[in-house]
């Protein structure tokens, strides 16, 4: 019986057991809870950071397969321990600090870039019993914390005393704040449907996955979250051919490694959030009774979403700056507002209808909105007068006419 209890819900079982032991030692309940919180947050955060090694291996392997290579295959089975070896190596690399850096921003930036992603894990519900904090403003908290990453990038760019780094930081912030707009609007749809900002409640009320209620909002959130992370096709931030490597040119050793960890963790966290908000989180057959099953569903769904982002990274070319801004401000933002309007009005008008029918109507209307907005924008695009780049006279140094001087 006890073994079954453990297998059914390891986290809950261990938590109960741990508090039981502390109570047995005569620790006051408040103190015991504080100790439990400290230990829990430490284990979860460390786990998340070590998990990144697996993500890096996975991504390298998948991208290698896309590009018809083998990828890491020397260390451990299928090269599984390649990232471990890389981590050991990066621990012994020298920090090369350029002259004239702004000490505090320069050193705080890598720490903050990891922390800003890691803190999101505090509110994510992994299963019905396995979650850190159940904040009633969970989603707002996630959005607020995610924008702290922009601060880290500005600090890195400004502190580095390097033009490329600063230009990369400007681009990064321009891109991130732009894509925050449609993302935040698209996130209104799940909030509206669930009637709560708490991630836990959003999962619990998803009797129908919200990707079915509003596929367009899900798509907007997906695109915007890739742009927020700053991965290909939105990796203008670190466009190698233009900006060396963007805001982290002047970082070396583990300080650079922390930016790397932050990026991968951010990509995975975006997949976690997508699953929570649009794919029903840990919901699935039997997930309420057997919490560990819910955790497995959650990991599988997130894995699929993450695989999709890796696939996109491996197959799409980079956007140009103006294309990137156009996609955001001239397509995604109007589209997200239109979807919000249509979903809110339709759902209210059809309140008497059965849920299944409502979902069908909403899907059809979503398709209609996508079609109409896209059609309107395409008409606008066709009428727009384009500036011919090639015909513009540019001040280029040319050899003087009429002989050498």
């Amino acid at each position: 019986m006890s073994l079954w209890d453990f297998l059914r819900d390891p986290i809950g079982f261990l938590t109960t057991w741990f508090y039981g032991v502390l109570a047995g030692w005569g620790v006051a309940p408040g103190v015991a809870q504080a100790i439990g919180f400290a230990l829990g947050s430490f284990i979860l955060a460390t786990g998340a950071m070590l998990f990144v090694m697996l993500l890096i291996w996975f991504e390298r392997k998948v991208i290698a397969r896309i590009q018809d290579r083998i990828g890491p295959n020397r260390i451990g089975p299928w090269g599984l321990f390649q990232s471990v070896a890389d981590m050991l190596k990066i621990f012994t690399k020298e920090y090369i600090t350029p002259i004239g850096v702004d000490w505090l921003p320069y050193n705080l930036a890598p720490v903050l870039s990891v922390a800003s992603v890691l803190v999101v894990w505090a509110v994510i519900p992994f299963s019905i019993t396995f979650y850190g904090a159940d904040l009633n403003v969970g989603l707002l908290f996630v959005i607020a914390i995610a924008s702290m990453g922009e601060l880290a990038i500005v600090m890195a760019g400004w502190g580095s005393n390097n033009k490329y780094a600063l230009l990369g930081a400007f681009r990064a912030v321009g891109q991130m704040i732009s894509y925050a707009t449609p993302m935040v609007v698209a996130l209104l749809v799940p909030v509206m449907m669930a009637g709560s900002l708490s991630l836990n409640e959003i999962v619990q009320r998803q009797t129908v996955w919200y990707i079915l209620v509003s596929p367009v909002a899900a798509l907007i959130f997906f695109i915007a979250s890739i742009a927020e992370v700053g991965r290909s096709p939105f990796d203008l931030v670190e466009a190698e051919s233009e900006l060396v490597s963007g805001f982290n040119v002047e970082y070396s050793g583990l300080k650079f490694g922390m930016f790397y960890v932050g990026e991968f963790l951010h990509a995975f966290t975006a997949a976690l959030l997508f699953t929570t908000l649009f794919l029903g989180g840990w919901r699935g057959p039997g997930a309420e009774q057997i919490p560990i099953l819910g955790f497995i569903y959650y990991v599988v769904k997130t894995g699929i979403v993450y695989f999709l982002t890796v696939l996109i990274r491996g197959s799409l070319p980079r956007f140009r700056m103006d294309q990137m801004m156009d996609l955001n401000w001239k397509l995604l933002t109007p589209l997200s507002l239109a979807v919000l309007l249509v979903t809110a009005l339709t759902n209210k008008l059809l309140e008497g209808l059965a849920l299944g029918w409502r979902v069908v109507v909403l899907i059809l209307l979503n398709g209609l909105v996508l079609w109409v907005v896209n059609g309107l924008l395409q008409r606008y695009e066709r009428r727009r007068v384009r500036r011919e780049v090639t015909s513009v006279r540019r001040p280029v140094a040319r050899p003087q006419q009429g002989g050498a001087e």
Partner: protein
Amino acid sequence: MWSDWLYVGMFFVVALFLPAAAITIAGILAPKKPNPAKQAIYECGMETVGEARVQFKVQYYIFGLIFLIFDIETVLLYPWAVAYHQMTLFGVLEAALFVLILLGGLVYAWRKGALEWV
């Protein structure tokens, strides 16, 4: 509720501590042999010209302003979204009006050419 925020606060401290500790440990393990050539600013092998903190394009600032307007107005919509199920059709229509005004602002910025990247 209070204990949830305690947990988040602890998590924040831990999340700041872990990368900071890793960077410090690596700093102790790593060699330290600086020299002027190594510490020079990386600029594709060229000598650095002028100040590194350059002026930035005004376009970034304009996008920042537009973002600010949109983000604040969207945050105002969040309480509405939370109360959506208790609302009558009238409340939804009012929010629709609000969103339409927001769209009007977007169209205005668009026509003014603030969304062009030049």
